[in-house]
């Protein structure tokens, strides 16, 4: 991984949109899921024969009806829980080889999942504490992370003093502080109002671009998936499986114009249709 920090922001701005649109070409697989089944103890088949490779620099959304196993898949990508069959690998290697630190992975949960008893700063530094990283350099990283989500004035606040959107940004700062390569997000903005959600979507794209992350993003919303991603993976339920992989080739940076463009509407229609098929298949399987 190149040192993105040093090249930011001067290099990021002139970076051609081509490069940003199709970083998958020639990109290394960051995480790959091969023939994975996941069966829970009670017999529920959450995933069946899932294959998915996410390459460096990609922004991939997992979209599907409830119960299609998208969150389960994301958790497996985080190494939370074991697969029943198949294999998940990071940087083309087994977990035993890369270990947690080697994966350079961060997870953002559905709710902000902050420790209510700790101030914002303490919450953001949690991953560093858990990795036993100390020193003045870590303080700097916390400052940077808070800066990037625009919360540098709120380091001493308690989570409950912040709005839902701000809490979510703390959660993102906490993910950023470890300087991850792979960011896994489980419906992070699902509980927020649309205005806040759009704002955070734009923030996320900006940070993704600036830091050269690879993102896997679980969502319910067709619009959110199309707006953010360069690939939308549509899943169906019973059993949870991937049924379509829709590339979104619109260039970045995307903004308000993209949201109202016919291109956007076209992609949304395509993804909605795929989702429709997924829902129908799930219903039939009931």
């Amino acid at each position: 991984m190149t040192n993105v920090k040093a090249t930011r922001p001067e290099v990021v701005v002139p970076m051609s949109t081509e490069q940003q649109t199709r970083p998958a070409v020639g990109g290394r697989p960051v995480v790959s899921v091969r023939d994975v089944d996941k069966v829970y103890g009670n017999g529920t088949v959450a995933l069946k024969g899932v294959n998915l490779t996410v390459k460096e620099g990609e922004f991939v959304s997992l979209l599907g009806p409830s119960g299609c196993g998208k969150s389960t898949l994301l958790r497996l990508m985080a190494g939370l829980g074991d697969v029943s069959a198949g294999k998940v690998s990071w940087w083309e290697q087994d977990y035993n080889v890369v270990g947690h630190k080697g994966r350079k992975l961060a997870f953002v949960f559905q709710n902000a999942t902050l420790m209510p008893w700790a101030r914002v700063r303490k919450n953001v530094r949690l991953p560093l504490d858990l990795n036993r990283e100390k020193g003045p350099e870590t303080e700097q990283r916390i400052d940077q992370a808070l800066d990037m989500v625009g919360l540098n004035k709120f380091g001493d606040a308690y989570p409950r003093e912040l709005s839902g959107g701000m809490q979510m940004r703390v959660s993102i700062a906490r993910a950023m502080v470890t300087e991850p390569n792979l960011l896994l997000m489980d419906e992070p903005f699902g509980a927020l109002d649309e205005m806040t959600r759009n704002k955070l979507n734009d923030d996320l794209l900006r940070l993704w671009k600036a830091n050269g992350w690879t993102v896997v993003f679980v969502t319910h919303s067709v619009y959110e998936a199309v707006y953010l991603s360069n690939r939308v993976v549509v899943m169906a339920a019973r059993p949870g499986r991937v049924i379509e992989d829709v590339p979104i080739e619109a260039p970045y940076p995307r903004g308000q114009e993209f949201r109202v463009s016919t291109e956007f509407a076209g992609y949304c229609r395509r993804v909605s249709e795929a989702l429709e098929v997924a829902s129908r298949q799930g219903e039939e399987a009931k």
Partner: protein
Amino acid sequence: MKSPLLENERFVQIAAPVFVGVVFLLLWEAVVRATGTPVYILPGPLDIAKAFVADWAVLFHSLLMTLKVTLMAFAISVVLGTAASLLFVQSRWIEVSLFPYAVLMQVTPIVAIAPLIIIWVDDTTWALTVCAVIIAIFPIISNTTLGLRSVDPNLLSMFRMYRTGRLQQLIRLRIPSALPYFFGGMRISTGLALIGAVVAEFVAGTGGTQAGLAYLILQSGYNLNIPRMFAALGLITLTGIILFALMVWLSDRVLRNWHESALKVEQ
């Protein structure tokens, strides 16, 4: 007509119950005087107040004795109860094997086992303390265990992702999550420690210099010194209220920054 004082929420909160209390005491005094009820059946509030002043030395000495047992029992309950909870959450096996015995201890009436304990433990103060601990420890154990288990599952996932050890998990996650439950347990436990101390003393019937408020009540009953009996009773109640208020204050101090129970919500 509205006075501004009556619109002050705090003033009303204090003044209203005090007003009810004063009215009650006045009625009591009036009824006792009107019916000419003898003091050894039902003394009026004035008689009780007189006894309070006259017998203050005895009352205070007894209060200290009861308070000593109560506080010792409470402290031991907090320490042992917390230790037991920490042990329980370490392994499902330990909890499953031992928790029923904690319940057993709780449901056995203290009055029934107090005589045994008084026989077994030589020192009276310790015997009373043991009795009080037996009933005061349970809320600490059950609440703290519940709290240590009530951890945000997503935060726990995060700790798992970082392959965090048990000790880190305990210190950073489980103990802070358990604090509100722990303080809830303490509130109940102080009251039970006091009840335990009084009940055990009733059973033990210890006199002499070791005598606490319970013995004073017994003795006053034998002597038909009903005003002093009421005074001792009043002191026990007052002690209970003060201990409870202290616990509320303490939990408020610790939790006020983050926990819902300690938040002041403006309507």
